Every structure is written in C-alpha cells, then in structure tokens.
C-alpha cells in the first residue's frame, strides 16, 4: 500500500519500493529486495536500498520525511516495465477505435512501459514524417514510450520498399519494419527487404501467411470450420510462409521476426531454424496461448482474428515453445475495432482482439499459476524477450543503479473478472470479457513516474 501520496510529486522525487519480490530477467535476480528511485532513475536495489536515502531498512514506512514516498510492495512482484512489440494504436486514421492516448492508457493499465505501434495506420507509417508524429505523440501522452514500426513497403502494397534508411535516421530511430496485416507475398521483394534492412541493423517482420491459401478465410480450418460453414484458414498457409522467410533470412544472415505464431508446425520450423543459427525471433499472443477455435461457434465476431485461434494441440505447442524460449516474446497484437464493425455478420467483421490490459493475466493464469513457468521465466517473455527483438532503449534492461525506473508492480494473487466495458481502450473487442483471471498490475512506473497507481491510470495530461 502506498503510505504517502504527495499530490504534487509525479515522480521527480524519491521513491522507495519496499517488501516486494524483485523479478529481473536481465540480471537473473529473483529475490525480496527494495528498490530506491530518485528523479526517474533507479539509485539502489537491495535489502539496504533505503540506505541511499539515509533511512534504515527497518523503517516500516511510517516515515516522517515528506520527500520520500514509500510504497509497500509486500506480496507483490517488482519487474521491469513490459514491452509490447506488436500493438495497433490506430493513430493516425483509426481514432474511432483507439488513439495513442487511449492505447497508451491501456498499456499502462497492463503494466507496459513500451509499445511498438504497428504501421498499418492511415496514412501508413512509411515515412519519417508519420513515424515522428507517432513517436512524438507518444512522448506527449507520456504514459508509455511509443516506438513506431515502419512498413516494409510503401503503402503496404508489397511492391516498393519504404525508405528504411530515412526512418532509421529520423528522431523515432525506427529499426523494425512490418506490413503487418498483409503478408509480403512477393518472394523477391521479401528477399530484398531483408538484404536492405540488414545494412541498417533493422529487423523485418512479415505477417506470415500465404495469401493464396487464406483468400476469403474466416477461421481456423478444421473440424469446427467444417461444421460452421466458414472458409478455413489452413495451418499450412502460415507454415509455408514462415519456412520461406526462414530460408531467405538464413541465406542472407538478416534479422527476421515472426509475429503471432499460431501453429504447432510453425513452432517446429522456428525451433529448427534457431538450432541452425538463423537470426530469428518470434512471438505468440495471449489469445493464441489460451483460446481455441470451438469458441467461434456463436459467431461472435469478437473471436475473429488474423491469424485465427487454432486447436488445443496448437495452443499446447505454443505454450511449450514459450516455456523453452523458442518463442521469445509475448506480444499482444492489440487490435481495437469500433463496436459497429464487430457487430457485423462474421464474414464482414474485421479481424482483431484487444490484448494490452489482459496479457499478463492470461499468461499468468495459464502458465504461471499452473506451475508450468516460473514467474521469472514469464516476466522474461514480457521484458528481455521483446527487448531482444528490436531496440527499445532501456526498457527491459536490468534493474540496477543508474537505470531508468521503468517498472511494473504486479499482484500475482489478484483475482479479477475481465469487463470489456471497464478497459481503457476505446474499443470493447476483448475476447476475454467475462473470464476470471489471476494476476494484475498494481503500479506502473515510467522513468519513476506513476502511469498506473493502485490500479488507476494516470491522467495523460497531468503526466505530460
């Protein structure tokens, strides 16, 4: 519990997190330690961290020093702020569903301090001007750091390369490129994108699906689609494309990131490529780690997503791959859609699910609370894992003196029922609505400032 609330202090001063379990994948630390923060920077981590403020560790927090805010983290986990390498913030162009302020608020509520905003906005993020707009808007909102993703090709058209060098050199320093939502089908363009990006140390992230095999697809192809009369999305479509991309990236020595892996076969391909030294990273979404295609039976378009939710055996393969590290990161593919678009007939409704505010709880409930992953392993998939995908500055870095105080404080015991209407996103399309989950962020700190305090998201304007 927070024992003092100096209202004027938004983090510039001294902060002491006491009694929590520090889970820091970058340093391998899993221990009960205090964290001292001053002016947005970690100044000490340890049993005697309070000492840097001239206090004794035995102080119970009933401090009479008004310049130190003491936060009691007993029973809670203290971890680096989460990083999402796959977020659709929709701004510019899609503000009816989400904008950078509402999406950042959702991120803060979910324990995130860094979001990578996908490029399929309107206009597309295929110029330094748009990338800087998104990056600067994130800074203004100041609830998370927004790292723009550039498109691989101009206008997501799959033909001409985006000015990768210009985006890399601009203020947003874009080093991650994706036409996410649209597969880059042309093998020659894909090969050249990998070759070109390599020169800038940039990563290519291809939405891995053979578009010929998924034309008109509505859900996972299988026994359920067969009965529901919906065109199937065969798992081979994903695997064929991932195989191609792994072969191309391996040949060039370029950096490839595979987004939203969903099939057991795809996991095998990535595992094999990693063994052979291909420079590949990969992610799985919370929804693909939990949901299965039988949930489509009601034709509620909230369950419609690209790639689709698959079968129980695919879910199990993804979980194993997340545990063994074949999948480096949990990424949300947070994809808000205005209700009027999801209230269409299934085939006319757009694909996409909300994810930021439920991601940790889903993974915690499915894999940590069940004992399949250690807390440290799970936290790694939200921090060091995504930090290995692209450059996100100090996010995910070790919690040591001198580092930015980008932190999340989690209550692993919190049981809560997801209410789509109570989320911070402007949209309501959460597939977890009504589910009971355990584990929830209590506080999120961006450079020492509370973006989430006691479960309440800070006002963007005040923080800014």
């Amino acid at each position: 519990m927070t024992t003092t609330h100096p209202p004027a202090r938004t983090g510039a001063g001294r902060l002491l997190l006491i009694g929590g379990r520090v889970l820091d994948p970058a340093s391998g630390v899993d221990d009960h330690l205090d964290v001292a923060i001053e002016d947005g920077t970690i100044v000490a981590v340890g049993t005697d961290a309070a000492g840097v403020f001239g206090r004794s560790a035995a102080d119970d927090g009933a401090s009479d020093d008004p310049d130190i805010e003491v936060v009691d983290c007993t029973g809670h986990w203290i971890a680096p702020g989460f990083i999402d390498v796959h977020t659709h913030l929709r701004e510019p162009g899609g503000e009816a569903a989400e904008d950078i302020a509402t999406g950042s608020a959702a991120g803060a509520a979910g324990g995130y301090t860094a979001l990578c905003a996908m490029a399929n906005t309107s206009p597309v993020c295929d110029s330094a001007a748009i990338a800087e707009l998104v990056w600067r808007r994130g800074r203004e909102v100041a609830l998370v750091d927004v790292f723009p993703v550039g498109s691989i090709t101009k206008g997501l058209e799959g033909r001409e390369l985006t000015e990768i060098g210009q985006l890399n050199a601009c203020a947003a320093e874009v080093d991650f490129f994706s036409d996410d939502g649209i597969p880059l089908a042309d093998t020659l363009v894909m090969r050249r994108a990998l070759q070109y990006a390599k020169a800038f140390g940039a990563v290519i992230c291809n939405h891995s699906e053979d578009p010929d095999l998924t034309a008109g697809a509505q859900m996972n192809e299988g026994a359920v689609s067969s009965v529901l009369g919906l065109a199937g999305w065969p798992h081979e479509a994903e695997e064929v494309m991932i195989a191609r991309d792994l072969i191309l990236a391996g040949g060039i020595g370029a950096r490839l990131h595979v987004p939203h892996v969903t099939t057991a076969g795809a996991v095998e391909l990535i595992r094999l490529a990693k063994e052979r030294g291909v420079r590949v990273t990969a992610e799985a979404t919370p929804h693909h780690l939990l949901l299965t295609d039988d949930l489509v039976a009601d034709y509620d378009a909230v369950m419609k997503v690209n790639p689709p939710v698959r079968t129980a055996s695919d879910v199990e393969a993804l979980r194993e791959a997340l545990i063994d590290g074949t999948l480096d990161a949990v990424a949300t593919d947070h994809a808000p859609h205005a209700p009027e678009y999801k209230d269409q007939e299934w085939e006319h409704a757009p694909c996409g699910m909300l994810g930021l505010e439920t991601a940790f709880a889903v993974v915690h409930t499915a894999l940590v609370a069940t004992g399949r992953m250690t807390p440290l392993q799970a936290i790694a998939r939200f921090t060091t894992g995504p930090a290995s995908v692209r450059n996100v500055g100090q996010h995910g870095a070790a919690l040591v003196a001198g580092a930015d105080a980008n932190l999340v404080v989690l209550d692993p015991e919190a049981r809560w029922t997801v209410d789509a209407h109570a989320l911070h996103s402007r949209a309501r399309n959460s597939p977890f609505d009504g589910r009971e989950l355990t584990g929830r962020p209590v506080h999120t700190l961006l450079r020492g400032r509370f973006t989430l305090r006691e479960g309440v998201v800070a006002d963007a304007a005040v923080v800014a």
Partner: protein
Amino acid sequence: MTQQPRHASSPAADAATTPATTPATTPATTPATTPATSTATSTATATRVAPLHHLLGIDDLDAAQVVHILDTAEQLLPIATRERNTVPTLRGKVVCNLFLEDSTRTRISFDLAAKRLSAEVLNFSAKGSSVSKGESFKDTALTLDAMGVDCVVVRSGSSGAPRQLARYLDVPIMNAGDGWHQHPTQALLDVFTMRRHLGDLAGRRVVIVGDLLHSRVARSEVQALNLVGAQVSVVAPPTLLPPEVERWGVEVVPSLDDALPDADVVYLLRVQRERMHRAFFPSTREYQRLWGMDGRRLRQLKDHAIVMHPGPMNRGVEITGEVADSDQSVITEQVTNGIAVRMACLYLLLAAPAVDEEAGR
C-alpha cells in the same frame, strides 16, 4: 414409380384444418395425431416434444422435434396444395422475410407458407453487408425489432447471421439459408419427401453427391438424416469435400458408380461452374463424367430409389435432362413439399407456443 402417390398419405382436409382453425384451444399435439405416416409411437413422443424457439440449424433439433415437424407438415400438406388455400392460424402475425442474398425461390416458398397461414408478410431485401450502408448488422436487427415483427425469416450469404440475429432479437428466427452453414427447412423438406416415398428412413442409404464444401444444404441434410437414422454416403471431388467430413457421421465413397447400387436416395448438389476457375475441378465435362448423374447411372439404381436436387439444377453438369425428367426424379415434388414444411415450422414457432402457454394456465 413411388410407393406412395403424391396425396395418398394425406390426412382428410378437415383434419388438417383442425390446428389451423382453432389454434387457441387446440392442444399442441393435435397436428401430429392423424397423419398416415405417423405411428402410435411417434404420436406418443410428440406429446413430449420440446417446443421450438428458433429454427437456426438442424443441429439445434432432436429426433423427436424433426419427426414432429414432419408430422405437422403432413397435416398441412393439403392446405399447401389445394385450391382455396388459406387458414386463419397466424392471422394478425407479422412475418418478416429478411433476404440479404438473392433467392427468389426460397423467398416465394416462405412467402406462400406464411400467407396460407394468413400471416402478414413483410419483405425486407437488401444486398451486401449492412456496413456498406453505414450501419451494423445489429442496427438492421434492432430496426426490425422496432417495427414489431413476430418472426424473422432470414437468408444471408454470411454463415452464422441467423444465430447473431437470435442474439439481438426476442422473436423466433427462422434460417432460410446462411452462407455455407445451414439450410434447415431444405433438409426438413427433403427428409419429408424421402419419408413419403420410402417410409421409415432408419437404415436407408442416402448418397449425397457434389460440392459439399460450399453447401449449406449438405450440412443440414446430413444432420437431419443422421437424426432419423438414415445412412449417409458422400461422393465428391476431393477438393469439394469439407475438412474432416468423416466426423459429420458420413461414409466417404470414392466412386459414384460404387455407391449407386445400394442407394435408396441419390441427392445431387448444385455445382457452380465458376468453381473450376479456382482449381476445384478441371472442367464441367470431367465433372459430369465422374460425378454427374446421367441415364446410364440412373439404370444402376434400385427401382424404388429416388433422385433429388435442391434446385436450381445445372442440367448437363451434375444432372442430365434424362435424369431430371425421369420417373425416379422427385425434384418438383420437393418444391411443393417445401411449402408444407415451412408452414409447419411457422406454425410450430408462432402458434404452438401460444397453445402451450394457454394449456399451462
């Protein structure tokens, strides 16, 4: 040609009018008590039949409900086919035909069925999705709700649209065909037609031929046939078989010629010519050779076997004129029976629940 000529099994016309003329005081089971095909057993089970709230798909029904619908249709068949052909059963009820996909035949059949029961019919046709008009499908549903209709008959190119509608509205929804998913009244009228020709369908062999992948008729048909105990074989180009089709409770037969000698019913599905442009099969000529029903194959059938088609036919592709016009073809009879079956469904959805409530007071 058939075991039962068209009207031989019809109950007396006045018996058939009983449920229709005095709906408020007639027990719900009355319509099932007198059809010639109904046995004492089916009458007894009819008393325990669960009421229908919607007709979204055959998979929502149990065997007793299917038999009850067929028995009711048997009662209503004389009204469906005779000259002076209305009864006041649904007077004052408004049935909305919401047709979001072109379908003149099915719409007319539902239209006739409702009018013969004296319902008012509201035709609401729109092509394409709601969003192209700037509103959501839910908005369209709420508009109908605001108009105060008593039942919505919905045809949509989108699988699942009737189920979504049932979530948005409180009135009974009848599925008149959705995407590739279900076409329950077609399956019911087909089983009704089979029963009139073959009697009890338990153990009978039905061979379904053609494009099952894109067929809402096939999905409903297989489920209805399984419920009445028939054995179903399917024959199709492998590209037009749905994924894991064997889990539907059918036997996949590699060759049509092998399937024909044991068949009691050959059910041909419409094959759209444009499918060959997406490499489902090489040519209509090859399709006709391998999976088309022609005179030579007709002669392999047992004498009592019948040939069926949901229409409209592609003569020369899945069926030749010789077969379509043969004595063993019951394709036009399916159309007539469709009116009676749709009347039965409307009756059970709109009139029978009121009777149940009345009886319960």
